[in-house]
């Protein structure tokens, strides 16, 4: 037991270099016991690299990572029995059934009497017990992966993109499982591309971009702090509307439905914009003014052009 008992995970100035590339670039954070921590970032941001260093299966170039008070580079075989891992793109033995797979992995962890039925119930796979891995759908495979990660009743569970590639229904089913784990008080460390997932599950979200953490806070705070603007949407068949808005100095855009969207900073601008459209003799059939959604905050935080324009988000040099 150390004085850092409060933390399940402590990461100090972690860096991982591959030839000419900083996959992880000097990141630091801590995760408390029972906390759900999400690493949110686009492809290639360095999420998997970070998780696998935490899982003791990659070695850091520099920095210090402590799991349950133990250094990951020194105590691999002491740490491993106390963590559970769902790797990115989990896969298992094709011709081994759900139940046998769970029995197999629990045997790897030795002597504890595993509650295989309980695990299958937890991930809702009881009626698939005798189905071979290769015959499971993607969502079920992923759920089996979670059950496998839990065979040793771990204190920390790592989930690398648990819902990538799943359809909306399967994703929701997965969230149910993860919320269940959260209720049970497990420390969860998950990575995801989806802000909504992070918001639903996580206590803390760290947004990573090119190996760096660009923002870290609770999901609510992140939105609060990065959503000062408004989004105005105009439904119109009139092409002059776009030109009028552009001439006012705003940056209009078409969304996937062909509606015009504009990002505005002040409520005053909304009135000015609507007046200008009316004065220009153009018409619109629908109007929507709203706060940005999580997707837009995420895009903003991971998009270079925005990063440059928003002060205080870029890390101090």
């Amino acid at each position, binding site marked *: 037991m150390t004085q850092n008992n409060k933390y399940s995970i402590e990461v100090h100035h972690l860096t991982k270099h591959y030839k000419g590339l900083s996959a992880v670039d000097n990141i630091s954070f801590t995760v408390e016991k029972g906390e759900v921590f999400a690493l949110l970032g686009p492809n290639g941001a360095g999420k998997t690299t970070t998780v*696998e260093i935490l*899982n*003791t*299966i*990659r*070695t850091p170039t520099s920095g210090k990572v402590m799991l349950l008070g133990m250094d990951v580079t020194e105590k*691999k*075989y002491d740490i*491993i*029995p106390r*963590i559970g*891992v769902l*790797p*990115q*793109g*989990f*896969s*298992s*033995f*094709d*011709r*081994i059934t759900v139940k*046998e797979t769970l*029995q*197999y*992995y629990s*045997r*790897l*962890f*030795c*002597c504890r009497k595993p509650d295989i039925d309980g695990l299958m119930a937890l991930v809702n796979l009881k009626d698939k017990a005798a189905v*071979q891995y290769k015959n499971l759908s993607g969502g079920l495979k992923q759920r089996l992966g979670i059950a*496998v990660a839990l065979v040793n009743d771990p204190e920390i569970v790592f989930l690398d993109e648990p819902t990538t590639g799943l359809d909306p229904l399967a994703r929701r089913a997965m969230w149910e499982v993860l919320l269940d784990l959260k209720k049970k008080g497990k420390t969860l460390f998950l990575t995801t591309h989806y802000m909504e997932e992070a918001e639903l599950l996580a206590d803390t979200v760290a947004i990573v971009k090119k190996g760096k953490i660009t923002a870290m806070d609770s999901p609510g705070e992140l939105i609060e702090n990065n959503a000062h603007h408004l989004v105005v949407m105009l439904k119109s068949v009139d092409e002059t509307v776009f030109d009028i808005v552009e001439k006012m100095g705003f940056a209009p855009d078409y969304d996937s439905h062909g509606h015009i969207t504009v990002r505005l900073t002040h409520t005053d601008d909304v009135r000015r914009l609507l007046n200008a459209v009316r004065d220009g003799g153009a018409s619109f059939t629908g109007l929507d003014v709203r706060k940005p959604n999580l997707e837009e905050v995420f895009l903003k935080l991971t998009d270079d052009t925005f990063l440059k324009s928003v002060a205080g988000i870029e890390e101090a040099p």
Partner: protein
Amino acid sequence: MNLRIIHANIIRANIIVSIKSFYREKTVVFFRIAFPVILILVFGTIFMERDNEIFELSIQDLDRSMSSEQLVAALDQSERFNITPVSPDADAKQYARDNHLNLIVIIPENFEMSLMKKMAADPFETPVTLTKVYDPGAFGVTTKIGVLDMALAKINQEMSGKPPLIVSEPVSILKKKYRFIEFFVPGIIAMAVMTASLFGSVNVNAELLQKGVIRKLSTTPITRIDWILSNVLYQFILAVVSTAVMLLVSYAVFKVSLEINAWLVVFVALDVFAFVGLGMILTRVAREAESASAAADALMFPMMFLSGTFFPVEMMPEFLQTFARILPLYYVNEGLRAAMIAVDHTAALKSALIIGAFAAVVFVLGIMTTRIGGETP
């Protein structure tokens, strides 16, 4: 690094999963168990006939005398021929062509008379001539003629009543005479165990690596030595089953006389150790699954043909014989044959030490290169 730790529970769990995966994949079972048996049956049947072949022989008796009948009876008694008479009216050449016969022996008219004259000790009388109508292009006809001439020589000698001046007696370097099939079966055992161990470990490991199962396993307490030992033990179990089936078939079908002793187990085990280890190294060295298989092919084929699996190494030119001596499979072949045919413990021990040293080196390299518990790619 935790190389020294071996977990019996983990190795057991791995073997259970491997064996279940194995028997649920029927084509793999076929290739593993049935294929070597088929090889033994096919080659065994071909070469079995070589050893004790009974030849088809057509005889046209133009003399139809007592003597000519006695000659036919004498040839029949040699037990090397299955004799079919050809009608004296037929044209022998045409008959041979029409009936796809590669040899017809013609006993001429006046055979009995000429024979009588010759027997009446008229040294100037020309010998009695039998005509052999044969197809020089036919496979095996030379052997048949050779056997026929030998049988005739024996008949000649018996009829003249003179004992032969020179005889030869074969003395084998082995305690007993062995047949080709007894040479062949140990070779097939060594080869089947080698290919299965090499390809089994390359294919399984490359697939698990590619699918990311190895990465998942790296986050469990399994160690490299657990993993490689699991692979070796699993392949050893299959090798024992497959060897037992091969031997049972060989005993039942060919009544081989091969010795079964502890050496058999030793060589099968060393064969597995060496080639599973080699397979583990190949999986690591080759980046992709296909190149690992290709590398395994490249190692296996020369070994199969040059290390004395199908024919004795002594049949090859000198430089290939030298080359054979650096192939690990050569020593498995030599050792197994020393143990099973000649029961020569010293020779078996010598081979066991050489292949054992090779297996040890490969095994250690295999442990060092296994990805489990190491840095993921």
